């Protein structure tokens, strides 16, 4: 069971919880379980959510494993110039 930290807008969609506990092997499973528990988060996932795992940001690699004890932080998928 990992602690998943959510940024403000996503936390609002997750019932106002800034931290949720979800058991997931990888990002794909994390997103699936998050949307199952909090359906309002699906719109954010569809729009793009980045996952910071111990400070490294993953935008697209949904197969990335979530190691035990890792700091996991969900962030908006950012734009660049």
């Amino acid at each position: 069971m990992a602690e998943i930290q959510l940024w403000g807008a996503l936390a609002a969609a997750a019932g106002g919880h800034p931290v949720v506990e979800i058991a997931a092997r990888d990002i794909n499973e994390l997103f699936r379980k998050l949307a199952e528990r909090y359906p309002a988060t699906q719109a954010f996932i569809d729009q793009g959510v980045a996952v910071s795992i111990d400070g490294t940001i993953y935008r697209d690699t949904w197969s990335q494993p979530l190691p035990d004890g890792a700091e996991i932080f969900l962030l908006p998928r950012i734009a660049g110039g």
Partner: protein
Amino acid sequence: MGFDPKYTGQAFKSVGTRPLRPDGFDKVTGRARYGADFNMPGQLVGRILRSPHAHARILSIDTTRAAALKGVKAVITAADLPDLTNGRADLFNILDNCMARTKALYDGHAVAAVAAIDDATAEAALALIRVNYEVLPHVTDADEAMKSTAPLLHATCFTKGVEPKPTTPSNIASRSQFGHGDVEAGFKEADIVLERTFKTEQAHQGYIEPHACVAKVNADGTAELWVCTQGHFVFRQHCAELLGLEVSKLRVTSSEIGGGFGGKTHVWAEPIALALSRQAGWPVKLVMSREEVFRASGPTSATSIDVKIGVKKDGTITAATAELRFTCGPYVGPWALLGAMTAFACYDLKNVRTVGYEVLVNRPKVAAYRAPSAPMAAFAVENVIDELAKQLGRDPLEFRIQNAATPGTKSSYGPVYGPIGIGPTLQAARAHAHMAAPLGKNQGRGVACGFWFNFGGQTCTDLNIAPDGTVSLTVGTVDVGGSRASLSLVAAEELGIPYERVNAIIGDTSSLGYNDMTDGSRGTFSSSMATISAARNAIKTLRERAAKMWDIPVEEVVWEDGQARAQGEKHNNLAPLSMAEIAAKAPKTGGPIAGHSELVADGAGVSFATHICDVEVDPETGGTKVVRYTVIQDAGKAVHPTYVEGQYQGGAAQGIGWALNEEYVYGADGRLQNAGYLDYRVPVCSDLPMIDTQILEIPNPNHPYGVRGVGETSIVPPLAAIGIAVSNAVGVRLNHIPMSPPRILAALDRQAAE
């Protein structure tokens, strides 16, 4: 894909050298083909009719007289671009921005377009189109647009990100918030709390080459688009979706690019050119004028920002907050959100909160501009940091070093940092000779920091070995700053061959798998990962072919210095095989030799910079001259140091223009008053000093060579560094960008009156 990150202390032969770029000769001799340099047989001239009103309901459009004009082959309005977006709000906004559907939302918004046999006929046709407008009240300022009494752009806009959901519409499209800790408690711990408000005006990326394309839609459903873009695969996707084309049947070729900086990440005129060609049955060339680029492409946000920071007497920051109000144009974007994420990213803060508001106004749709939104946020935060240091009697640089983020710091936007370079850039600034140089009369010095995320993305690369052993490298990320040279160096490094034996090109959308745009400082970062992967795949095949030629097990063949070598005592007498020798035998050993790679280049390392700036301000005119400028930035690993330095200098030069002169000026009628380079003044060579650079290399552990993106961070500190320098020169703090001569004189007058 994962790499073994054995980058530390890696001995490079090609990476880190400075060969000439392969596209340089054509560019300096005028032979490079940019967007407007391409022509198709029988092509027509496309022109766009634009709204003269900042906000107006379109009651009717009569195109009958234009369509009847001899030589006119197509006339389109929004009715010819039916809504195929299937409820996707982001795509609908692109469609509505390309051609206004029910309302013109800014001065310059496209309302109709024509294709004709020549310029004169196209211009005459535009003059024959009759648009019946109901002019509406407009708003262009962020703070004004947030008021409940402001003219409303969209009656359907209810602020997202607030609970409970608002019951009345407004121009505030969304609210975002970041931070941690207890800021109220943190401010109570502080000995000094400083709160300031800042404004920055809207600036354009100022790329030299206007948007240009040639479009051809065929009767069989296939289509071609030649276009100046930062991302031809993304343009293909958007154009195909907006026009109902099959994606694979639209072939998009990217031209050379005369600057983009984020402004060429969106489609503006391209869907219109395709729609005109579809109606006319002939190719259509559409080139935007400079005036159109200013009025109707995507500048950056205008902003209004409040910053509050509390600090103890020992220099420890106890709490920090910021409220950021960013204009988006008429359609929501993530611009205040990015400002909120980046504002305090340089610092180690126990208590921090940032709130961003995306504000809709009657200005063009905002596009990314190089580290989008971070420069404005840094301008506000760094000014307060500087002022606090002075109130504490501390050197501002030492104050920053005391509070800088380090590996393990919880960032202000959330996650904990891994290896980062803010501390080393500050230390390098402290040790730099620039900091000890004396200042003259009316001169001031400013120091400021900046942060940008960088990112990777989908990337596809082909590496083909020719029969003579030379290498063709085809990449899908548009070369905006010398990446063909950098990627050739990477291929040469992996293969162990000279740089000159690699020829890199940008493939069109039909020759490679999908590639994300060249944005987010990802071009060299992402495509170098894919190039390394492709080269390693090619080396595997080369070893297999050498083993066949020698008739020995492939496990006994190694690749060293561009040659296959047989390992083991029993093979001692075998001479190495070169790439040319292996390639010459390829037809008999299994056919062509190539390496391919398709990957998602995640794991881009974040980037930090510290800038030092000296200015001289003429107290009579308010004119400012930048007399010395130094950029210190972490590159992870500089693949081609000259082009890394070029990115550092380019960002600083754009920041200097933005800080001192560049500004969208709107009249009371909501019309842009300075849509040209005579009145919107970007810096020219004579305005700039030699911009000194210092490359730091703190490796990114997620790239096999330690590379970080370098293209954007260099524009983050300049607004603040110059602002602080000007304030130090004139003795009064400037809180409004640009610090043009009238604003500086007004500040001096206010100071004299106090």
